[in-house]
């Protein structure tokens, strides 16, 4: 799985503003890949996961309703949207992706297709 710098398709209208890149952990084991992404402030209904071709796209919007007339005095997060795309390799089964969003952390489990799972090859000694 590799980061794709160029978006797979044109950004949608209204989504043209720059986005934050969420930090991720990617761990692969024999059965598949586990990806965790930090998406603080993104509720479930503002999270959009998409697999198109071999590109996995994570999009999320931060839902903050600041009180009226708030004057921002110190800003470290200056965008309201997360975006990151990854290209997936062939052996991953994109139809079986499981996603979970808890406390602003997205956990994706992408299993390897059955034929791509490692199989022990018995070595015969004649």
């Amino acid at each position, binding site marked *: 799985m590799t980061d794709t710098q160029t978006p797979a398709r044109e950004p949608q209208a209204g989504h043209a503003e720059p986005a934050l890149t969420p930090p991720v952990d990617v761990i692969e084991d024999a059965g598949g890949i586990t990806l965790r992404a930090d998406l603080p402030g993104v509720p479930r209904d503002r999270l959009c996961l998409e697999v198109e071709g071999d590109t996995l796209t994570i999009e999320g919007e931060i839902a903050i309703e600041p009180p009226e007339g708030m*004057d921002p005095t*110190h800003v470290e997060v200056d965008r309201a949207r997360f975006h990151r795309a990854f290209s997936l390799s062939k052996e991953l089964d994109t139809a079986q992706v499981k996603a979970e969003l808890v406390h602003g952390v997205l956990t994706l489990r992408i299993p390897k297709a059955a034929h791509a799972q490692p199989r022990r090859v018995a070595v015969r000694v004649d």
Partner: protein
Amino acid sequence: MGQDATLPIHGEMTMLYRTLYSRNVFAELDRLARDMQQALDLTPAIRGRGPGAFPALNVGTTPRSVEVYGFAPGIDPATLDVQIEKGVLTVAGERRAEAPPSDGKATTHARERFDGRFRRVVNLPDDINPEAVQARYRDGLLHISVPRREPAKPHRVTIQ
């Protein structure tokens, strides 16, 4: 660089030193990023700030309150320590990395997420009421609302 005769000699030495002794390109990039940040931000706060600090903080003020937003995903809210002492708000806690599967066959391809202990500090204005602070944690976002004692309304002074 060496062809530029007007370059100060110590600058040239620095370049030489870095070229000869920089073994780790990532440490070098990191240093470059810090150098650039210092060049751009001439008066950094003494407690440090900027990208990389966890949790990232946004602070805003209204006439009635100070609103602090901490972007702290993946934390058990019960372990978050939020304190106000002498007009300084402290947010502290720990985020532990999930243990990899124990079979030893897992490969880590990326490890960008923060783990470990953290502490961040915000100076609050003088007119806050520390008794009535509210803190909420939702979707990995910590929202602390600190009311101010009285709205800082301008009041007209009558001239006698």
